């Protein structure tokens, strides 16, 4: 019997705010332990949390970017449990009335488009960070109270590769939208994986196994590559899986049991009495919606259709937004945007790196790159000469036509002038001329090269070829 995997992901993302969610402590990575803490985030008695408006804005903005609906009423709840990194003995979260729900993420996968539905993205708070020593553990609460978004997907994923691709697509969207820096090294994104297996064609889901606290996307992929075959093997051997929580051992490359359902937590959720409900007004939502940006996939598709770019070029512009903005600015007047893209991606980018010039300080004027392309396309200069003209444009900011004029670089298409050069070269290379006449086609390329050299690269190469051939055959 064939089995299939059913995977859902809960992705936790730290929001990019200046201060924490309920207090004014800095939301900052890498500060000395317990220096970004105050009575509120330490859970001292008698304090009152107040919601950070930017945290709520970024939550709703995420909802828009993930095609969610934004309920007109949201509230906060307490999730009660004891753990050393939770100073209040509860986590503030959104239980039954989240700020966003029912969305989806579209992404490219396996040569086509895939869609993963988003159950909800709700706002909660991060906990402290634990350090483990030989005899005890230490806790740093700098991270406690940092706004954390939990993005819950429907179980729409079917393989480790699909999960990996979805996570990267989600990350790109969040970075694009300015929601989070998504720096994995700094623990800004963490993932819980829910995975079960079932015979292909069966409707009911198998026992759900949760793999907790994954901190890298490649780890998620590896954990699934281990866990899916493990579950299939258990079921195939006639065994029974039961709901349990497992831990991924990255070094050993295996998952191991953390707790089974019998010891499952009882969180006793109840409404957070210290925080007021949230009912966004139309004006507030309108202000947030103005921050919606074009998503990476839409951008890629637009660059491919509007400018006729091949996928790799479009992807380059998706991954380098400032360069893409520059390209869009300069190509506004271009007849041949694809050629302009080549100049931007290959030549301009190389020059920027080589000279350490920031993009904002590029001297080339917006209309000049399309003009350069037009000079090449119109046969005015050769593409080889164009390289020199480009270097000059980059160095001085002069217009390409002016450079061609000043340096006398215009391509020579004057038949008389080229004939003269061809005669000279044939006279100087009798052996090659002989070889060509004897049927060695390669000799023509050599002669052509000599003519180009003599013309300092300015002769129209097409014409040179024609004229040489005619002369040699006569």
């Amino acid at each position, binding site marked *: 019997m064939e089995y299939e995997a059913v995977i859902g992901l809960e992705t936790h993302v730290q929001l990019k705010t200046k201060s924490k969610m309920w*207090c004014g*402590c800095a939301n900052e990575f890498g500060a*000395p*332990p*317990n*220096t*970004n803490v105050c009575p509120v985030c330490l859970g001292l008695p008698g304090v009152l949390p107040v919601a*950070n408006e930017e945290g709520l804005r970024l939550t709703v903005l995420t909802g828009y970017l993930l095609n969610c609906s934004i309920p007109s009423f949201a509230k906060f709840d307490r999730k009660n449990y004891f753990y050393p990194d939770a100073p209040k003995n509860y986590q503030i979260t959104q239980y039954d009335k989240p700020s966003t729900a029912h969305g989806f993420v579209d992404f490219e996968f396996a040569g086509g488009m895939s869609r993963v539905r988003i159950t909800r993205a709700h706002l909660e708070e991060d906990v402290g960070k634990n350090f483990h020593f030989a005899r005890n*553990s230490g806790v740093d609460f700098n991270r406690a109270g940092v706004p954390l978004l939990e993005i819950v997907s429907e179980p729409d994923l079917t393989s480790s590769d699909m999960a990996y691709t979805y996570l990267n697509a989600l990350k790109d969207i969040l970075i694009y939208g300015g929601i989070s820096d998504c720096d994995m090294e700094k623990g800004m994104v963490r993932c819980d994986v829910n995975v079960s297996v079932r015979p292909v064609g069966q409707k009911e889901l198998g026992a759900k196994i949760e793999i907790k606290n994954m901190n890298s996307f490649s780890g998620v992929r590896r954990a699934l590559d281990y866990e899916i075959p493990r579950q299939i093997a258990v079921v195939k051997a006639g065994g029974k899986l039961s709901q349990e929580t497992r831990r991924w051992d990255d070094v050993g490359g295996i998952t191991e049991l953390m707790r089974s359902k019998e010891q499952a937590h009882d969180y006793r959720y109840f409404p957070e009495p210290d925080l007021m*409900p949230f009912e966004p007004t139309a004006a507030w939502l309108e202000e947030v919606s103005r921050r919606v940006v074009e998503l990476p996939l839409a951008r890629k598709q637009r660059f491919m259709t509007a400018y006729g770019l091949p996928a790799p070029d479009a992807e380059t512009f998706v991954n380098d937004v400032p360069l893409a903005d520059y390209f869009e600015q300069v190509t506004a007047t271009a007849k041949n945007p694809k050629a302009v893209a080549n100049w931007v991606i290959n030549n301009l980018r190389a020059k920027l790196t080589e000279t350490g010039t920031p993009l904002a300080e590029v001297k080339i004027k917006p209309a000049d790159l399309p003009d350069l392309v037009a000079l090449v396309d119109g046969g005015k200069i050769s593409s080889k000469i164009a390289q020199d003209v480009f270097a000059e444009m980059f160095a001085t900011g002069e217009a390409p036509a002016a450079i061609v004029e000043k340096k006398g670089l215009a391509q020579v298409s004057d038949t008389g002038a080229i004939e003269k050069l061809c005669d000279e070269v044939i006279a100087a290379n009798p052996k090659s001329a002989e070889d060509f006449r004897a049927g060695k086609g390669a000799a023509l390329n050599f002669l052509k090269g000599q003519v180009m050299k003599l013309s300092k690269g300015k002769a129209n190469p097409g014409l040179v070829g024609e004229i040489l051939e005619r002369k040699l055959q006569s």
Partner: protein
Amino acid sequence: MADTELDVKYVAHLARIALSPAEEAKLGAQLGNILGYIEKLRELDVSQVEPTAHAIPLINVMRPDEIRPSLPVEDALRNAPAQANGLFLVPKIVE
């Protein structure tokens, strides 16, 4: 008194409180009384009342995203039973 079942042992475990059998019996009775009192509310007809998460009619209480000073680390750690290198020390965490 309403008939309210309460697993005192379980609730005590959730709250991480160790109770003697005598305390269990005493607290069980007291909690039963409280729950019985809450049961009384069931007698009210609330079908016309909108559910609420809060007794105070306030919504959208927010603050601007601005950094304010945190506590000096020595103040933050003042109540710590044990500390080292700026960290709160706790019994070894095992999952």
